């Protein structure tokens, strides 16, 4: 056992770090580290900088712009990006729609969509959840009826992240009402400019607008925008879940936030001393630091298995659960450190981060997956 990074991996980390230092615009880093609102333009600017460097879609095949990095290199890249305060790369195009097209798309679909996803020309969003179908996604009701060369889509998606920025949305829709629930589903790519689509904001409890309801009223979608065969949508969706990158743990970001927390606690006073020196509070930070350290090694251990050829299974679920719990705890301790203050931004952030244990498969559903897949319960 040797838990040190190899010299090559260390050199790679240095390269990434050096490049980030040179190329991450200061204003974006500032916005990220102060948790300021990131506009569509901010997100796309960073996407395009990475695309120009050839680093925006590391896991894609080389012919489509992938880097050929192994899982540990990809992890290092993500950790460094998060730690440096780079804006997040939204997963919807790069790590959801892209991989689906690579696996199930026709050559024509790949040529049409992949370069634009890579270049950040189209902003994608994910149309899975519906009012009646969250954890039980397969019960979805949005209908797509075949009429000649088109599907006519009717129904509603909800919680759609950044649909108000969206150029395209990939949707799971029901194409066969008579089939068993998983079998009547298809995967459609829908241009958000198509007539009949209405996007309505949903305001979250921190007052922010990041999610939306998306209504479809007789929306005509060309049949060539269907990915995989009719009725294969659930297979596509399951592939996506299994393929989801191992970055849900967001170690780099949490490491940066942990440092922020320490710096912040050093500026707050309690009993005439820095809060950071208060044993009671310091212990909470230390426990969290230990948990994060453990998660980092767990993540690397899983990646090492992946590199050795073992496909990812319930491990991804564990990383999601622990990673989000750490992120939530960080926001909570920041709020606690602030104490009574007129600056409520930290408290709002704590509120906002309750979402992380709900979205991307709730932590309860992740536990169900682990119980079923790896424990045989």
């Amino acid at each position, binding site marked *: 056992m040797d838990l040190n990074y190899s010299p090559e991996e260390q050199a790679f980390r240095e390269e990434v770090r050096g490049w980030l230092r040179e190329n991450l615009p200061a204003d974006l880093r500032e916005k990220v580290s102060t948790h300021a609102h990131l506009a569509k333009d901010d997100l796309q600017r960073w996407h395009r900088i990475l695309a120009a460097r050839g680093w925006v879609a590391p896991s894609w095949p080389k012919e489509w712009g992938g880097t050929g990095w192994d899982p540990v290199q990809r992890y290092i890249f993500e950790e460094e990006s998060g730690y440096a305060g780079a804006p997040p790369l939204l997963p919807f195009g790069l790590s959801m729609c892209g991989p689906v097209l690579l696996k199930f798309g026709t050559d024509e679909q790949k040529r049409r969509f992949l370069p634009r996803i890579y270049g950040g020309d189209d902003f994608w969003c994910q149309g899975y959840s519906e009012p009646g179908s969250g954890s039980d996604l397969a019960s979805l009701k949005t209908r797509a009826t075949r009429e000649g060369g088109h599907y006519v889509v009717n129904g509603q998606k909800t919680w759609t992240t950044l649909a108000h920025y969206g150029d395209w949305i990939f949707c799971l829709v029901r194409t066969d009402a008579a089939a068993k629930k998983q079998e009547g589903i298809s995967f459609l790519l829908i241009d958000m400019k198509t007539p009949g689509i209405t996007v309505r904001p949903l*305001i979250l409890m921190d007052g922010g607008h990041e999610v939306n309801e998306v209504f479809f009223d007789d929306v005509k979608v060309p049949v060539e925008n269907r990915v995989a065969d009719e009725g294969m949508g659930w297979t596509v969706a399951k592939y996506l879940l299994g393929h989801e990158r191992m970055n849900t743990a967001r170690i780099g970001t949490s490491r940066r936030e942990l440092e922020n927390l320490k710096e912040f606690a050093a500026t*707050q006073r309690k009993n005439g001393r820095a809060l950071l020196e208060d044993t009671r509070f310091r212990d909470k930070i230390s426990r969290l630091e230990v948990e994060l350290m453990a998660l980092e090694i767990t993540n690397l251990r899983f990646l090492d298995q992946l590199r050795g050829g073992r496909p990812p299974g319930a491990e991804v679920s564990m990383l999601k659960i622990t990673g989000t719990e750490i992120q939530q705890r960080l926001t909570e301790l920041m709020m606690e450190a602030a104490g*009574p203050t*007129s600056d409520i931004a930290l408290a709002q952030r704590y*509120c906002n981060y309750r979402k992380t244990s709900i979205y991307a498969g709730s932590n309860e559903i992740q536990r169900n997956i682990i119980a079923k897949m790896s424990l045989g319960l």
Partner: protein
Amino acid sequence: MKFDYNEEQRLLSDSVRRFVAQDYGFEARRAIVASKEGMSATVWSTLAELGLLGLPFSSDDGGFGGGAVDLMGVMEAMGEGLVVEPYLSTLMASRCVAAAGTDEQKQRILPGVIDGSIRMAFAQGEKDARFDLDHVQARATRAKEGFALEGEKLAVVHAPVADFLVVSARSGGKGISLFLVDAKSAGITLRSYRTLDEMPAADISFRNVPCTLVGTEGEALPIIEAVVDFATALVCAEAVGALKYANDATLEYLKTRKQFGVPIGAFQALQHRMVDMVISYEQAKSMASLACAKIDSAKDAAERKRVVSAAKIRIADACRHVSQESVQLHGGMGMSEELKVSHTFRRLTAIAQQFGDADHHLERLARG
């Protein structure tokens, strides 16, 4: 030993509960919060008409001589309704006047408080003070008439809607004193904002503001501690109401929200979570009852402090546990600002810190 409310207490809390149900529904509250002032003058008059503002004052002061236990049911009802009006703030400030003020100050303030024409805020917190009541740097110096106040007070809840403020400050090399300030005085600057739980609040700067001394100069700390303990016990009771709402709403959601063809409450993983929330609620309710009872009957300040701190620790834990779980078990809906659950989450989060977070009270408890 007897836990039930007496007849009068029951009638009173019923009337407040009825009022909240009829006139302080979630939509009505939303409109109040969205209004410029962030509170409703009509609601305030109703609270006065219901006798809630006179309740805790002695009959000599024109009140009904009620104690913390008499207010428990009232606070629970307000907690359930997430009432944003300056009830507790007004009680804290006016209680200082009732406890230590001159006859003239009482005359000026208490009848107006009781009939609903005067609203108040208690300006205590300062930079770097965290939850310490004796960390006071504001200063008052003797003026021709009365005193002149200088300094900054932070995060004063309900300051923007208050007619009078009671402010802690140091004077003449002595300890901490309390001062009564007309909120419209020249020299007061408010930086107003809304708290996480949607209350109007402000950071206040005082520049040479005329004020009068409340009580004996330099000897206000025991009064402040007693008033804050009183308010802490009451906010514990308020939390009980908010916790109850969070649990009721979550239980209802578990029974009605269907996924995988069944109500999500059919999943044992969630049943146990719900049961733990109920246990938290019951433990919190017991501690709130104990705190209110001891506010009325503790043999000395030490006993009062010990019990109030113990209660606040348990309440803070329950607030955190129940608020987080209620949002989580609502899934995405729990995050939505359209549902009262998320507003209850915010109130519970704020209560966990109000008048000292769990750490603060753990320390006070350990000091004995």
